[in-house]
């Protein structure tokens, strides 16, 4: 029984170790979702899109139709490290509201994240958004269940019709209020629509206790409704690529991100437009 307990501790420790090694270099404790975003190396702080709207809530009002979506990330091909995510966005005038839920883990370790978000266009050149997050970490055995609430917020500015700059802040509460040691993260980036079929973006992200991560990626519409994506993240020297195809009200995306030591993480997502 004692040996089993030790094995459990080791396995949980390994899980925590893997959790720090995010496949692409996103916010370690934030919601990592979107195969399209994964294909661009998560250089999506200013890129319009369903899942991008949960990476920077200021992008929410750029969703003109109600949508819901599901996503599955298979990290390094290990099923215990898989993450399932579902979300929905509903436009309300100049604003949009969104909800997202993410589940990670297996029997002995689970992490659930739920978020409620709202984004609004403040003017022709400015949009802002905020999301309230509720985190739960459950571990079997003698470990406690860990719960906390935090928030994240973002801002988008448009210097020109085809250029956007933006920033996103995750978990910025002072330690005296949040009572947890989860990292704070700041992302700053810019993106440009080089033509109707080509978008390129770059961003810098830093989490407390971590080094600066630089990311860049592009999305190219090779033929109508078929998009090719690629990107690079300096964290773990991660090359990323992916594709997406839109059929009627459904968009299907596939994304692959590499890790310099741990292999490939694949993602798939389906986005459904309601009207």
């Amino acid at each position: 029984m004692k040996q089993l307990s030790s094995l459990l501790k080791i396995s949980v420790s390994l899980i925590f170790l893997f959790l720090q090694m995010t496949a692409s270099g996103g916010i370690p404790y934030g919601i990592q979702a979107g195969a399209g975003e994964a294909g661009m190396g998560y250089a999506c702080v200013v890129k319009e899109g369903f899942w991008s709207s949960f990476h920077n809530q200021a992008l929410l009002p750029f969703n003109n139709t109600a949508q819901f979506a599901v996503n599955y990330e298979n990290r390094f091909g290990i099923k215990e490290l898989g993450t399932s995510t579902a979300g929905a966005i509903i436009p309300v005038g100049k604003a949009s509201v969104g909800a997202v839920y993410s589940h990670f883990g297996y029997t002995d370790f689970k992490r659930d994240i739920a978020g409620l978000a709202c984004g609004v266009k403040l003017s022709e050149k400015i949009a802002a958004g905020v999301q309230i997050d509720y985190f739960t970490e459950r571990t079997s055995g003698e470990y406690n269940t860990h719960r906390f609430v935090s928030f994240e917020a973002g801002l988008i500015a448009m210097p020109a019709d085809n250029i956007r700059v933006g920033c996103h802040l995750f978990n910025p509460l002072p330690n005296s209020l949040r009572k947890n040691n989860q990292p704070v993260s700041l992302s700053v980036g810019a993106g440009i629509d080089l033509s109707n079929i080509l978008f390129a973006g770059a961003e810098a992200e830093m989490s407390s206790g971590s080094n600066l991560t630089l990311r860049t990626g592009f999305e190219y519409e090779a033929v109508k409704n078929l998009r090719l994506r690629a990107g690079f993240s300096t964290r773990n020297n991660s090359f990323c690529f992916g594709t997406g195809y839109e059929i009627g009200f459904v968009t299907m995306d596939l994304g692959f991100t590499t890790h310099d030591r741990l292999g490939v993480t694949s993602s798939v997502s389906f986005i459904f437009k309601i009207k």
Partner: protein
Amino acid sequence: MIIPFASITGTETTIPDAVRIRHLVITNLSYKTGGDDSASLGSALKMLTKYKFLAGSFTGGLIFEKDQGEKFFSPGTMSPDFISANIAYTGKGLVRRVILGDYSVRFGQGLNLNTGISTGLSLTSQGYMSATNEIKPYTSTDENIFFRGIATQLAIKNADISLFCSRNNIDATIGTENGNSGDYIGSFYKSGSHNTLSLLQKRDAVSESVYGINLSYNFRIISIGIAWSENRFSLPAMPDYNTPEKIFSFRGRTNNVASFYYTSLIKKILLFGEVSANDIKKHAIVQGMSFRPSDRLIINFQYWKYAPGYTSFHGKGPGGSSGSYSEQSLLGNFTFEAARHLFIRGGCYIQHFPWLKYRCSSPSTGVKRELGFKYMPGEKLVFDWLYSYRYSMADNSTTAGIPALKKTISRSLKMVSRYSVYNNLTLGTRIDYKIIDPSGSKGVQLLQDISFRPENVPVTFWLRYCIFRTDDWDSRIYSWENDLLYTYSIPAMYGKGSRFYIMAGWKISGKAELRFKYGVLSESETTGLITDTEEFRLQLKIFI
């Protein structure tokens, strides 16, 4: 370049029968958590109040200050820890200025006399010439550098004469030689903080008398001047000569300094310089040149040398306080508009210290270089990149005996972009990267600034969020912050953590302004715990 030769005068106006009196009051309150030290005599609250009145040709000022940990009233007295006051007359005829009370003085390049605040040398400044000669009412809070007494400035055609006389008590560590207390000055204490009993004993421990004269004359293409000053202390200064670093430090009661300075504009070349010597025949020299071969190019050079043994207690030449330690330095830089909206700037600063100094037990050298690019594609968008290189020496404390000097090279890259979305909304992003050789320690920082002024509301908000990570103190990163009016804040970020502040400024009916700043510095300890240091600052400015 022409600033020293330009004088701005107001238009002649009819003086009203009754001169209107205007009042300016500024009060600052600052509090930082974690500052409640049990050894401190007073509270952790820092307080500063400045009052100034203007009545025609007369002005007056009063300053009270209490530093963190000090008692508001000095023990045994009913006066604040620091109090300063003055009254001044400014005229246009023979008598240009008379000041009674506390004042500051600057002549020439500052080798002999310069009691202003030194902001350090920027390698990419567009010029290095000191501003014009002046005596002015003291408005700062440094508790030891100012003069207290009377000063006057007279002008006759192109000639200018300044006379001043001061007697002030300054802080010092007093030593004993024959068992009696108060025999000699062991060292001067300049920080101004008196928050413990031992520091309180240094307060106003020595009386300093200073008097001097400055004569200057403007010729057609050259302006020249001479200045002389004498310091007298109530006790002799006797630094510890067993410490080699202090062998050339000032010894005695009296120090005389005389200097000659000039400024000349010859076509597109501005020349300026000063030579100064004290009564033990030790000298200091400053020579500078500013050259503008075209409207798009400015080149500057400056050389200075402070010989060992040269001391000026109220001088402040380039590179630091004159005479704090001997130094021989050369600085050069340029600013070039390479293309439309594109500016390139660079500079190099070579220092040689022929004698020992703080943390250097042997003669040492230092080099700084900078290269920057600034691109402004429009009025609303600015990109600014700056690469800095710094070579320095310091004692290697791990070696036995006389410490060998450890050479350290620091390279840093700063990238700033600033975008004004609207006139009332500006976004700023900055990335810093620093690497230290040979230790290999690194520092990186990402920060986001937002300043916002809502329409129809006289309130401006400044926000910053910054995340940093440095391996040690050597790879620390400095970040200038918006702060209360007439103050500044440039904290050093090191370790792992984040920094956030929000500041609001409310302009109340054009006659008052209220500013409030709240900041948090979150730092990760080696144990993984995060500690927060919170900071509150409040300022009220009234101008009626």
